[in-house]
């Protein structure tokens, strides 16, 4: 399990190589990269600044990873999140899950990003031509996270 919070960009290929290297039980790797867009519901933006809660962020991300490992038979996971000032096209977040078979890797990857969006203490400040604006949490992100349930007993069915 790997959790990193950093300002620097990342190399997805290198990161995936690190979490698969030498582990020949891994039959599938699934990953997701989130990018900064230049259009948001409130209009065009020039940049975005991500703030986070050092200490709690790492703990929250580790908890999300642990939950994924409890729910699926995973070989390794990675959550990497950037903070600071980012521009359209920049990578913000990278999550990955590896497993013997694809179903667990796909589902766990989806779960990691859905839960991260509603649990990890990050906040986005958009820099638009009309000034700074804090992004509001979206109901659809809560809905996406809810589909995975909230308690460790609500395990999804693997079919």
């Amino acid at each position, binding site marked *: 399990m790997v959790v990193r919070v950093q300002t620097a960009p990342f190399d997805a290929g290198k990161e995936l190589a690190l979490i698969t290297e030498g582990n020949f039980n891994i039959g599938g790797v699934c990953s997701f990269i989130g990018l900064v867009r230049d259009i948001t519901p409130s209009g065009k933006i020039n940049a975005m600044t991500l703030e986070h809660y050092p200490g709690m962020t790492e703990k929250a991300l580790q908890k999300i990873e642990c939950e994924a490992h409890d729910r699926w038979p995973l070989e390794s996971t990675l959550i990497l999140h950037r903070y600071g000032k980012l521009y359209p096209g920049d990578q913000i977040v990278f999550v990955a899950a590896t497993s013997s078979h694809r179903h667990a890797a796909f589902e766990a990857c989806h779960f990691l990003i859905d839960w991260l969006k509603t649990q990890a203490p990050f906040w986005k400040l958009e820099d638009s031509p009309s000034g700074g604006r*804090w992004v509001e949490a979206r109901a659809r992100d809560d809905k996406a996270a809810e589909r995975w349930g909230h308690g460790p007993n609500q395990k999804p069915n693997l079919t």
Partner: protein
Amino acid sequence: MRLLYFAWVREKIGMSREDANVPDGVSNVGDLIDWLSGRGREYEEAFANKASVRVAVNQEYAKMDTPVKLNDEVAFFPPVTGG
């Protein structure tokens, strides 16, 4: 008690952290918010809508009835928007 403020809560209150001498009667998160709200206009505005503020006690999500103690770290922030 160490108090931390993030995002627009930080902007409204005008600082990112403070060590506060919280009075004895403050025993949970709800009490703490009520006490802070009475400390000045900045606080009152930051906590005007309690439903829009999230709270963490010692870096764990908390509710209004979560107990708070002298040496706790309590953070206030808007709903999260990472990812």
